[in-house]
């Protein structure tokens, strides 16, 4: 299985865009900027919704109103983060594929986090009983916060598992 992914990683690393990114001194920070800007929009719109479900902070809007208001930029942020992340991955794919922190982040935590987020957005209205949020809603918000903190933990751990 690892051989299969390494073969794809080698091909990806030799594509024109990957060679352009890894061969340029200025392109890499700009690709990182794309990834981090997308992540800021994604995390910065996910956490306020989860915290609203938990009943923490201002209650001017219900969870479903907040979810609707943030929806477009939430997913725009996700698409920008995926685009930047894909380009970052392409530039050093063979280094990332065997990295256990990267494997856990992209192979496990990110898919679960995204699916969980879709469920939270989908059910935001059903979690509400008037101005109050049901216990299920609070648990859902808490789980999502923990999931994204786990993703960030795995991401910052990637350099600790790098082999040179």
């Amino acid at each position, binding site marked *: 299985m690892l051989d299969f992914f390494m073969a794809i990683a080698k091909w990806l690393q030799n594509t024109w865009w990957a060679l352009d990114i890894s061969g340029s001194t200025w392109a890499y920070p700009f690709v990182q900027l794309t990834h*981090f*800007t997308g992540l*800021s929009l*994604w995390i*910065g*719109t996910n956490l306020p919704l989860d915290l609203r479900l938990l009943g923490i902070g201002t209650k*001017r809007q219900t969870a479903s109103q907040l979810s609707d208001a*943030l929806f477009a930029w939430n997913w725009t942020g996700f698409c920008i983060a995926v685009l930047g992340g894909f380009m970052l991955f392409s530039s050093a794919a063979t280094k990332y594929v065997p990295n256990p922190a990267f494997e856990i982040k992209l192979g496990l935590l990110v898919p679960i986090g995204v699916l969980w987020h879709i469920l939270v957005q989908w059910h935001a209205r059903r979690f509400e009983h008037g101005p109050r949020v049901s216990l299920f809603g609070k648990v859902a918000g808490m789980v999502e916060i923990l999931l994204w903190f786990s993703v960030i933990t795995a991401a*910052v751990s990637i350099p600790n598992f790098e082999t040179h």
Partner: protein
Amino acid sequence: MLQFCEWLEKNPWIVAIDSSVVISLILEILHYSGFFLLVGSTAIVDLRVMGLAARRRAPVDVAKQLFPWMWTGLCMAVFSGFFMFAADAVDFYLASCFRTKIVIVLLAVVFGVIVSSIVPYLDRVSSLPLWSKIVAFVSLVLWIGSILASLEVPARCGVG
């Protein structure tokens, strides 16, 4: 200032924090999470003032819901950032990229305060004035600039 940085770097508390892998990891997670929360929530308010996000809700509603998280994110990023800075205080102090980052972040915070102070006024006008959109746009550019400046510190100055 350089003497203070030298003292800070050698402070036993800072040395102990820096030598702990777990605490360093927690600080890094806090710094990134705080920064994402700060930039993301501020960007949505800026985009609302520019008329590009959450148009069904009044700017003041969006701002009052998100600004507490902006300040929470800022506190998380500054608190963790201080300890990350302290561990290599001399190198950071001498790095021009780091000073540029701090200037851009401070300017972005100032514009964040300006946006938060004009939002209640925007609730009383029928359409968003051009000057408020320009202020929000500058704030957004500064926050994106602060991400780029943060990335340039290790890339160009080799610190952090």
